[in-house]
Every structure is written in C-alpha cells, then in structure tokens.
C-alpha cells in the first residue's frame, strides 16, 4: 500500500515538473497513435461508407472479416509487421524495424478495421429514404456518399475515437516493432511496462495517470457524440 502512495506522490511531482521522460513518452504516443488513427480515418471512412451502401456478392463475408479485424490480437499484428520490416523481410529495404514508421503501420492495421466496421454500421443506420431522395434529386453517387457521411458524422467520430482508444493503450505490437527506444519509440504503454520491470513505480504511475486521462478524454468525446444524437 505504501508503494501506491509513494508512487502517486512521485507521479504528481513528475507531472508538475514536466519530467522529460514522461513528456517524451506522451508526445511519442500521441504522434504515433494520432497519425495511425488519421490514416485509418482517411482510408477507413470511405471504405466503410462504400461497404455500408453497396450490395454485392461476398459483402457479408467481407463485413465479417472486417469485424474479425476489430479483435485482432496486437501481438499477432506485431509479429507480422516485424517479420515484414526486418531487413530479411519483404519490406526490409525500408529499414523500418525499431522506428515510429513501423509502429504507425502496426497501429494502423489495428485501428483501421474498427473505423471501417463502425463507419459501415453508421452509414447503414442513416434513414434509407434519404438515399432514395438524393438519387431522385439527381445526386451523383459521390455526392450521395458525401451527404450520407456528413449525416453520420457523429457515429463516424465515435468510430475514429474507438480506433484511437484501441491503439493508444496497445502495447504488444508497438513493443515488438518499435523496440521501446528512449526518446523515440518509447510510448506511454511501453514505458510503463519498462519502468515497472525496473521497479521505478513513481514514473510508471505518472505515465499510467496520463494514459488514463487520455482514455478518459476519448470516452468523453464518444459519450458526447452519442448523447447529442439521441434527440433525433
């Protein structure tokens, strides 16, 4: 019990003094997970919208594959990405092992299915008459898609937040491909694990506190988006 209070005390002082290690791990986590989430939104929202609106053979299979992707075990993704970016692997010439780029790739693979899957659901839940109406008014397919996405923007924001929430607290893949390098690829989760194994609980608690704060912020945005939509 002493350890917890001692840890919390040290955590507070490290947060107040903006400890450089804590600052570096926080900014690295935000940069890597932020970029991975942005990339998943940029590619996942159009893909999800298309998947939500289209009707074709094999669509259900594709959707269930996407839904499976939402539960991809991070260590499995880490293993595959590591094998890809090792110098002996197919992407070896990029020399991305132990870099932020490799972490972005791994986190993208983890976040994208969530964004695609939730966007597809969001688009499908928009009133189906709207699509017919737009078609009747002579909207092109692209215009229809754009309007439907705007209509479903809050659930899509929820999808993005779910993707970010998943990767910011992920450790397995990031550790395997990023290598936990101080001041570079050391993010909140990998720093917490390392500090705990080194017995530096104060620093671990400080980082854990920031991570919890971030997860809370994500959920606050999600809740706001969901509650706001209800009156419709």
């Amino acid at each position: 019990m002493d350890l917890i209070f001692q840890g919390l005390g040290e955590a507070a002082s490290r947060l107040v003094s903006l400890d450089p290690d804590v600052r570096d791990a926080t900014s690295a986590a935000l940069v890597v997970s932020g970029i991975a989430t942005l990339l998943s939104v940029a590619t996942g929202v159009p893909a999800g919208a298309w998947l939500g609106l289209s009707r074709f053979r094999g669509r259900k299979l594709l959707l269930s594959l996407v839904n499976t992707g939402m539960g991809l075990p991070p260590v499995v993704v880490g293993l595959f990405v590591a094998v890809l970016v090792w110098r002996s692997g197919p992407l070896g010439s990029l020399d991305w092992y132990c870099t932020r780029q490799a972490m972005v790739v791994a986190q993208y693979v983890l976040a994208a299915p969530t964004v695609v899957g939730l966007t597809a659901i969001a688009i499908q839940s928009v009133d189906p008459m709207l699509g017919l109406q737009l078609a009747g008014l002579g909207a092109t397919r692209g215009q229809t898609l754009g309007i439907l996405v705007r209509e479903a923007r809050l659930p899509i924001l929820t999808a993005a937040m779910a993707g970010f929430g998943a990767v910011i607290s992920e450790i397995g893949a990031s550790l395997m491909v990023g290598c936990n390098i101080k001041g570079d690829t050391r993010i909140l989760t990998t720093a917490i694990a390392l500090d705990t194994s080194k017995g530096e609980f104060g620093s671990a608690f400080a980082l854990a506190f920031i991570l919890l704060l971030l997860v809370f912020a994500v959920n606050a945005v999600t809740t706001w988006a969901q509650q706001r939509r209800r009156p419709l």
Partner: protein
Amino acid sequence: MIRAFAIFLVCALVACGSPTQRTVDRPEVLLATTTSFQDSGLLDVVAADFQKHTPYRLRATAVGTGAALAIGARGDADVVFVHAAKEELAYMQQGNGDRRLLVMHNDFVLVGPPGDPAHVRGKNIFDAFRAIAASRATFISRGDKSGTDIFEKDLWKQTGIAPAGPWYVEAATGMGQTLTIASEKRAYTLSDRGTFLARRSQIEVDILVQRDPPLINVYHVITVNARKFPNVNAAGANAFADYLVSAETQRLIASFGVDKYGEPLFFPDAGKNDADVR
C-alpha cells in the same frame, strides 16, 4: 493548412532536428541485445552517450540473448551485445559474426526467502542447486531463453540434475518480474546482481550464494558479418563495438549505478582474455 500538417507529419516521423555532428552514409545502427542491459538502465545511458560521441544513432531492441543472436543470424541487426558464451561461439562458427570483443562482466546471485528452507546459504552454487532440488523448494526459472535462462540451465546441467516437477516453475518473463514472483512465492531464483540491486527495496528475498566463480556472467559485442549479409551497416557496427571497448566508455560502465546502489553493476573487461575474467 494541409501543407503545414504534411510537414508536421513528416517531421514527427523522421524526428526533425535531431543533432548530428559529422554526417555518415548510414547513421542508424541497429543493435539486438539483452533485456538485462535495458532493465538495468545502462542501455539508455550508453545509447545517449554513443550518439553524443559519434555521428551514429543507436536503434536498440532488447529481446534476450537467444532472440538477439537469432536476429543477428538473419542479418536483421548490425551488431549484437549478449551474454551466453557457448551460443556466441556457435554463432561465430556459423559465420554470422565478424568481430567478437569482450566488453564487461557482472555476476549472478542465487536469491531466496530469508528463511532459506533448503539451507543453501554460503554453499557453492552447485551444492546449493542440489540442496534446492533435494528439498523440492520452489525455484523460479526465467524460462525465456534469455542469457540468464541459458546460464541457469547450464548450471543445472553442470550439477547433473534435470530440474523438473511442480517445484521448478518456468515464469517466461523478464528478470524484474521473476524476482517479484520469487518474492511473492517465497521461492529461489537466479538473478543478475544489477537487477536484484535495483529491485532490492521492494522484494523480500536475500542473496544466499554469491561470488562463486561459475557465477561470472560475461558480455561480448559481436558485429554481424557484412560479407554474409551485405545489407548490414558494417561501419556503424564497428563504430559501436569500438565505442564499447574505448577507455572512456569502460569508465562509464565502471561508474554506472554506483551513485544509486552504492556499488557498480558491471565491471569493464575490454582488452582482457576470456580466461582472465573467470
């Protein structure tokens, strides 16, 4: 706006503005090394110092000696820094290494519950292992093919005992975690001195056997063979190996941890023969 964001993206990824003194063709040196090097904190210190004194930047992955040698054997790293003499020699024989240099040593300690139910205190390590096996006292093994794990398994072999049964627990985790498990389960385990000193205040295990010659743990740096793996950054690997055995780095190693633990964690050995260290 979009352009500003794109610039930010590129900067964030390639870490703009990182200082480099002289320029070299390939500044990134990929090191595969052991968890004890990272868990002790020495890796972070060495990486920062190496970057300060050379135009190179260290990219290190701490995975355990077995995995580090496997990574080196595929040419996926430029240089490895490990501690398992037999495996290292096999690695050299397979032509995977170029230079292999003695850098430093530390030592292992047998730790266990202060009550010492198997009565091993003060014995030599082989008699202590025999006593633990005979009394079936719980022993936590790393079980992760790390250098420490390989070292421990080798000690059992030299004792002539094949440890098995419910008393022999394979934790498959890092040293710090293994010490916590040993403390919680009132069990024995073999630890490197550095990790034990770092965790001493939080766990209830004592050193029971130490300063026995078989417990010396020697670290070598091995540059990956660039003739076999042409993609290797040979210049960077050699720079790191030379850096580790330089007089200045050896002094850094000797003083590391003294302020925090009152005694050094590692002992510099550059230039010595393997036989002199034992």
